[in-house]
């Protein structure tokens, strides 16, 4: 049998960790977009990811639309779900406190999950990988082509959002809502529209995460909750509301999981990641890049 040097192994852990981390990061970015405008933690964020995968399966595999067409159709469908979530679950609440809004998103996530179970059934689905399944071997480190897509989409999302928030009027208006909703209203920004937009945007990003993840890990109706929790952890670790924080948090979480699964007792890998998360919070109560002053405290 061939020997397998330690360095190679370590690099393999890093590659795997970064890929899984990139998915977490995308979910975390979705959390942040909504949080920044509304201060809500949208616990249905994971369901967007699940829907992204399953809608893509229907559109691409069942209906047979080519990849390039199926991709925008899927994102559009899930975005629509995000819009509906805001219109049907969030906006009707008359006296919104953070706690009731969170419960509303929990309820929404239960409904979405239940409907997905009725539509797609309980079995897992696969998608063909975007550019084949032949692994790339770089000096003994194996990279699936799909890994590159995942990381590529994370970069694309990050660049896209930076441009959106810094260069467009709409993006700047959303930023203004995040900083101070009342002032934003005074200068004529329709805060309701911004809330709607934030749900649409984060649903779209969730969908992208889901449809790139499915060729690696399959997808079924029951996946959302776990992804939401990992993404929430990433957002908190990086600091709620901070986009660089979300990416950093996601990647760190993925790396810890991968490294501890590879080098320590793998049954405890999730525990190691969470212990480090707790340790960070006890030292920095607002996450790595979060700002306690900015994170205004609302009542529950």
């Amino acid at each position, binding site marked *: 049998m061939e020997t397998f040097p330690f360095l190679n192994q370590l690099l393999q852990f890093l590659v795997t960790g970064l890929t899984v981390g990139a998915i977490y990061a995308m979910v975390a970015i979705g959390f942040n977009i909504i*949080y920044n405008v509304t201060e809500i*933690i949208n616990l249905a964020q994971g369901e967007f990811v699940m829907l992204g995968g399953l809608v893509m399966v229907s559109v691409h595999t069942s209906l047979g639309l080519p990849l390039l067409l199926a991709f925008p159709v899927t994102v559009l469908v899930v975005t629509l779900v995000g819009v509906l979530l805001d219109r049907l*679950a969030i906006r*009707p*609440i*008359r*006296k919104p*406190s*953070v*706690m*009731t809004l969170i*419960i*509303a998103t*929990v*309820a*929404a*996530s*239960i*409904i*979405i*999950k*239940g*409907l997905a*179970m*009725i539509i797609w059934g309980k079995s897992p689905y696969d998608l063909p990988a975007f550019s084949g399944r032949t692994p790339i071997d770089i000096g003994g480190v194996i990279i699936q082509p799909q890994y590159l897509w995942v990381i590529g989409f994370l970069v694309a999302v990050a660049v896209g959002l930076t441009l959106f928030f810094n260069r467009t009027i709409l993006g700047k208006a959303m930023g203004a809502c995040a900083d101070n909703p009342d002032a934003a209203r005074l200068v004529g920004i329709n805060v309701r529209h911004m809330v709607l937009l934030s749900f649409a945007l984060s649903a779209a990003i969730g969908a992208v995460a889901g449809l790139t993840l499915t060729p690696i890990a399959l997808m079924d109706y029951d996946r959302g*909750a776990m992804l939401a*929790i990992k993404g*929430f*952890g990433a957002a*908190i670790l990086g600091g*709620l509301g901070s986009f660089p924080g979300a990416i950093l948090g996601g990647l760190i979480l993925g790396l810890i999981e991968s490294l501890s699964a590879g080098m320590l*007792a793998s*049954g*405890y890998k*999730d*525990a190691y990641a*969470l*212990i480090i*998360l*707790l340790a960070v*919070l*006890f030292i920095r*109560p*607002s*996450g790595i890049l979060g700002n306690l002053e900015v*994170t205004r*405290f*609302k*009542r*529950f």
Partner: protein
Amino acid sequence: MLRIRKAPMLAGALLILVFPWIASRVPAISHYPDLMVFAGVYALITIGLSLLMGYAGQISLGHAAFFGIGAYVSGVLTTQYGVNAWLAMLLGALAAAVVAVAIGAPSLKLRGHYLAMATLAFGIIINIVFREEARWTGGPDGMVGISGLTVFGYALDSAGKYYYLVWGIVAAVFLFTVNLIQSPTGRALRAIHASEAASAAMGIPIARYKVIVFTFSAVLAALAGSLYAHYMNFINPATFDLFFSIKLIIMIALGGMHSIWGAIIGAIIVAFLSLEWLHYFEEFEIVVYGAVLLLVTIFLPEGLSGAPAKLMARMRR
């Protein structure tokens, strides 16, 4: 909200007292006392949690862990070390208190969503320990052979008998908590909820109060866990996972966050919904559950316990 009236309390107590008798007369609901045992177990947890969330304003997404600590301490000590069940229950509550202080002291300094994540993480970690330490806990398969409870040689071996034990404890805890709310401690808690800065300025030791309430709620959850373990004669880690923590929050939200009554009503409603009624919707069960939760959140933000007052107000108008 502040005054707890005597009349509904008496009516509630009477209802609880005669419920098994009524249920036994109606074949269709003859198994309801069995469900009520679990509802009572949940109510013990939600009373503490409502004190923590509704009165002190601190969120916890990790209370399933304390529920589990109580259950596992009881399970392990009675099956593997032959400890008396009641003593084990006490030790379980003690263990939960120690863990609650250790985790609560640093966590409760965190705010809002950060506190939510910290308690969530704590809950998941404890659940992983239940799952991985198979030598003591039996691993993911669970632990079998936990004995029932006896009082002076009298076995509480049926739903009817256990019902009175559980609801007797719920009643005692309820009275204690009501008194606590109306005491200076209760006022201090509400002050913390209203404004931490103001209450700190008034000289209330915020941090200490938060940890005390957190610990109190953890002890109640552990007690509930022990009762659960001895009734089921079986425990497994999945019962104490983070989805149960979220279910507890749902109970509080459905019942009404700012009243102890709400905690009990929420526990009963969710127990019956999830364990019995929604069964009839089959495939649509999950969707209906979510829809009920959403409708209550939208139309009754004060929870079901706020509904009578709302109705009265509307009638007066």
